């Protein structure tokens, strides 16, 4: 029998969605392994968070009252101590930005094999984990041949757990070695304000790296104008300084929910899709018929944007 320990996530006083997804994923794994599901909630209003996290399928919630916000030095120490106490078969963490900041350290510290960004898994005897590679063009499975493993799961892949649970809520006294805490979070800042709010737009014409050169952005701007739409983009366009940060759609940009989203020369990387999959109608224009964007598109054109975009603009002039 093997228990699962899942580490929940919160920021600025709110649990993040992935915390509830971790319950679903953790329960699935605990069922496969024939053990209990333990959650840990570290820092902040831990007892308030624990009440919210007490959903169906959770056996025990460990509250760790250490600091207000995420600090990876504290998290790493706490999880290591919890692990020593519980000896779970698996530690499941989010593949979020903060997950990226502590999960590999935890795995290394505990000498656990680490598989990140899981989109599925099954433990029937050995643990098989499904992942994506090459910008989602390929799926792989890896088998983990160990009794103990560290896993991170991709946000948005498991449904959020619902239903009220009857978990034991216990407080865990960690002993933090303050001299080993060598990072200090000094604040937060919201970025990407400015002239337009792409989250308000009904129609977004969104441009990606397929546009190749800064001069070519104009082509897509013209289309947006002709359609009365708002211009947005994938990350590389913003990284290149071709459009301001407030135009970026995605995990680290804005989450948008327009009626129509036209993705032009955008591959559909997971971090981009995280920002636009809620659009009502998704239309993709891309030369690559295998581009992952077509998996979530409702309509598509497999062709060169430099031919299609001007032709489309013409239709509206």
């Amino acid at each position, binding site marked *: 029998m093997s228990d699962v320990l899942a580490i929940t996530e919160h920021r600025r006083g709110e649990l993040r969605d992935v915390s509830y997804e971790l319950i679903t994923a953790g329960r699935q794994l605990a069922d496969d392994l024939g053990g209990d599901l333990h959650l840990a909630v570290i820092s902040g209003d831990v007892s308030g968070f624990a009440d919210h996290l007490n959903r169906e399928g959770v056996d025990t919630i460990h509250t760790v009252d250490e600091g207000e916000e995420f600090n990876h030095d504290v998290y790493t120490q706490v999880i290591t101590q919890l692990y020593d106490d519980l000896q779970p078969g698996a530690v499941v963490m989010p593949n979020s930005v903060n997950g990226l900041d502590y999960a590999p350290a935890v795995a290394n510290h505990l000498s656990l094999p680490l598989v990140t960004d899981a989109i599925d898994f099954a433990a029937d005897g050995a643990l098989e984990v499904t992942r994506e590679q090459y910008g989602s063009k*390929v799926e792989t499975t890896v088998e983990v041949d160990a009794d103990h493993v560290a896993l991170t799961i991709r946000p948005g892949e498991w449904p959020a757990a619902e239903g009220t649970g009857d978990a034991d809520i216990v407080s865990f006294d960690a002993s933090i070695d303050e001299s080993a805490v060598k990072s200090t979070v000094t604040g*937060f800042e919201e970025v990407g304000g400015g002239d337009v709010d792409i989250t308000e737009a009904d129609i977004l014409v969104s441009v990606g790296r397929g546009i190749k050169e800064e001069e070519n952005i104009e082509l897509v701007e013209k289309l947006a104008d002709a359609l009365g739409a708002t211009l947005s983009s994938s990350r590389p366009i913003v990284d290149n300084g071709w459009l301001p940060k407030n135009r970026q759609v995605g995990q680290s940009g804005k989450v948008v929910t327009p009626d129509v989203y036209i993705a032009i020369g955008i591959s559909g990387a997971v971090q981009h899709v995280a920002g636009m999959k809620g659009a009502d109608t998704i239309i993709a224009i891309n030369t690559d018929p295998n581009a992952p964007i077509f998996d979530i598109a409702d309509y598509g054109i497999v062709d060169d944007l430099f031919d*299609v975009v001007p032709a489309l603009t013409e239709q509206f002039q």
Partner: protein
Amino acid sequence: MKVLVTVKEVAEVEDEFEIDGLKIDERYLDYDLNEWDDYAVEEGVQIAEENDDVEVVTVTIGPERAEETIRMALAKGADRAVRVWDDALEAADFVDVATKTDILAAVVEEEQPDLILTGVQASDDAFGATGVSLADAIDFEWAAVVNALDLDVEAGVANLRRELEGGIEELTDVDIPAVLTIQTGINEPRYASLRGIRQAQSKEIAPKSLGDLGLDASVIDSEITLTSMYEPESESDATIWEGSADETAGKLAEFLRDKGVGQA
């Protein structure tokens, strides 16, 4: 001060490709410097330009072919390079995070850097874990997904920003020595100048085997094995408009008009 930058040559897959067992058939792969590492190299070179006596060394786990990519990093201003490879690595289907950590830790032992920069992730296997795992192994402090960096060498502190989800940035101070995983957008990576390319030819790329680093082939043993690779079954129920660009644009225009778009 010495800055060590991890540099990976990644494979990019062409639009159409075939999978051959656990690999994509070589014919369909193009090789390039990992996008995130390009920003890490630039950050290292900028640190060298802004401070006295900084040496920038790159480290790559990769075959001889990777030297083309390594030269690119050297042409952009890195001083010299280390490349780790041998038959055991060549034979492996899959090199896991723990193995990369052990290899890089051995390089750190030799080089004794003060700061290590890595990309947030490699675009091919997308594990996103090597930098932070390495930091734990060598007992350095760290920060992941760094999109702004102000290094106070005297105080021994890196003032940085971590880019969280949803357009929120975390401001964090981290003691050095540290490993920072670099996010795209932190800077504007330069193009290699002709002069840089010429100079790169005479810069050292030191090949190292596992043995040279005091490791043996057992470092590649892993509890994680790659068991399959396949093209994901398309969940797509997208309607694909066919025809010439004019025809498809016409169909899309009709669709948009039906939705009331463009009729202001």
